[in-house]
């Protein structure tokens, strides 16, 4: 680790720890809730969910941006998040025992969307980045509409549909779903570690696909691997939290501003930063407005000014 990045790492770590402490210390029960064991259990589960969701979304965003050499790539613009929401929504509506199947539904939805985007973007057996982004955005719109349709046909409340499309950490865990979440958390960490292990390939891919091919990178295989990992991770996370926008798009940019473009720093940095910003957003979402707010509203309100500030201060 180079010494000049030390302050940035410390800053990121402090931010993450502060967000975590705030997350555990606040809630409807206030600070006193920490002493009550069931309340503390709920807060720790919420904390874990926030870390996994924020970390995964930001790491996937960072990997996709590097892979596709496009600053707009993220789980949302690539259609994966909306596809996962559709899969989860369908599972939810189709059966009341769906609880345990929810992450599977989310993953299946994400995977199917990713495939659809890939096929749509392939023109004369060539997949272009522009094609992928365009197809992703279109499929994302389609899936968002379909989620609404499924929720309305399934006689779900509009509120449920809104939270499915705008995210929340208010998942209520049962014994089964907490074990499931544990599995998802472990898989998420493995997936993020896997993407981290591909840092070198992603660095080379980011400098252009042709250059990567001449340097001996199997670009097709790298692309497919990243896509599959991204679908699995985002699919599972979205089935628990709904679609949380902004984190996957902007956190990687923030982290690159701090550490430069190398993925061996961008990926772990994104995980910590994404987790921190999501926890902080959740603290605001649940404590500022009575009744709480969908998370995506807050992630945007918190992140955009911060992002603009960083962007302007670099100019």
């Amino acid at each position: 680790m180079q010494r000049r990045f030390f302050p940035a790492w410390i800053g990121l770590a402090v931010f993450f720890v502060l967000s975590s402490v705030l997350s555990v210390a606040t809630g409807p029960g206030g600070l006193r809730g920490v002493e009550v064991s069931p309340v503390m259990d709920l807060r720790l589960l919420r904390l874990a969910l926030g870390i996994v969701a924020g970390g995964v979304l930001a790491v996937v965003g960072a990997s996709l941006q590097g892979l596709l050499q496009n600053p707009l790539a993220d789980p949302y613009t690539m259609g994966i998040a909306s596809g996962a929401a559709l899969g989860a929504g369908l599972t939810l509506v189709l059966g009341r025992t769906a609880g345990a199947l929810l992450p599977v539904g989310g993953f299946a939805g994400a995977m199917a969307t990713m495939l659809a985007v890939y096929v749509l973007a392939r023109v004369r057996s060539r997949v272009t980045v522009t094609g992928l982004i365009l197809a992703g955005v279109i499929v994302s719109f389609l899936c968002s509409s379909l989620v609404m349709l499924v929720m309305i046909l399934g006689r779900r409340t509009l509120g449920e549909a809104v939270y499915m499309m705008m995210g929340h950490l208010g998942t209520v865990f049962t014994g089964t779903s907490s074990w499931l979440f544990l599995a998802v958390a472990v898989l998420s960490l493995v997936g993020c570690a896997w993407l981290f292990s591909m840092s070198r390939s992603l660095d080379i891919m980011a400098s252009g696909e042709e250059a990567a091919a001449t340097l001996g990178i199997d670009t097709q295989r790298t692309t497919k691997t990243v896509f599959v990992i991204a679908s699995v991770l985002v699919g599972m996370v979205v089935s628990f939290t709904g679609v949380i926008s902004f984190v996957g798009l902007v956190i990687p940019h923030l982290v690159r501003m701090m550490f430069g473009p190398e993925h061996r720093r961008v990926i772990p940095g994104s995980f910590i930063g994404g987790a921190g910003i999501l926890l902080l957003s959740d603290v605001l979402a649940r404590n500022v407005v009575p009744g709480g707010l969908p998370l995506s509203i807050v992630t945007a309100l918190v992140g955009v000014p911060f992002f603009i500030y960083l962007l302007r201060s670099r100019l």
Partner: protein
Amino acid sequence: MTLTRSVLTIVLLVAGCGQRPVSESRLRVVSLVPSVTEILYAVGAGRMLVGNTNQCNFPEAARGVYKVGDFMSPDLERIVALRPGLVFLTLPMHRQLLDKLIEMKVAVYVSRPASIEAVFGETDTVSQLVGRKAAGESLVADMRRRLDSIPVFADTLRVYAEISGTPLMTAGGGTFVNELLARAGGQNVFGSSLQEYPVVDPEAVLAADPDVILLLHPDMSNADIAGRIGWGDISAVKRGRIYDHLDEDLFFRPGPRIVDGIVLLAQLLHSAR
């Protein structure tokens, strides 16, 4: 609270209808409000109904009526094509539709009862509008009699009424459920919420410690609730007082079945002990 809110009625009767009751054979009625559909059938005016919504599912006969769309998004063209003499709708749901229908000089009635008392008033008005005054009066008298026969409970149980599990949503103050609960000897633990259907933090339910949990959504059973992490200490869970698979229309529809809703709630809250 809700009792002080009076019924909002806008009755626009175009030429030909006047203030007089309209002769039954000529009046073609469209109901975009499931509760009004129920009132119409209860006063014997079901045959006048030429159109209603996909959510108008009670009584059984209402299902067979031509559908003009969803409660949330009825189709103006279908409504107009039916050449209705009177359209029942509600606000804020049908705001745009209301303006259009007024512009087209179609007679409309806005249903928006905010209390049990207002439902009685609305039943009277609706029955008069369709020329069924006597039937309306006897229906209201019957509902009042049944309502009065429900005892007033001295003690109140704290109730959490869940309408969605992902995320948790409940009925706040100003909702019908809230008032029905109060009349049935219950106190809505989220009754002070200003939002009608607020999302609640799981932790807030723990803090409220309800005596009874009502599940007003179909996809969960009481076993699911009892299995929620951290919920084991809630009084309702400890005493097994979670009620599932309830007909939520009884609690959300300000129609002739509200008294059934109150009776059911009173039974759940007070007879089991």
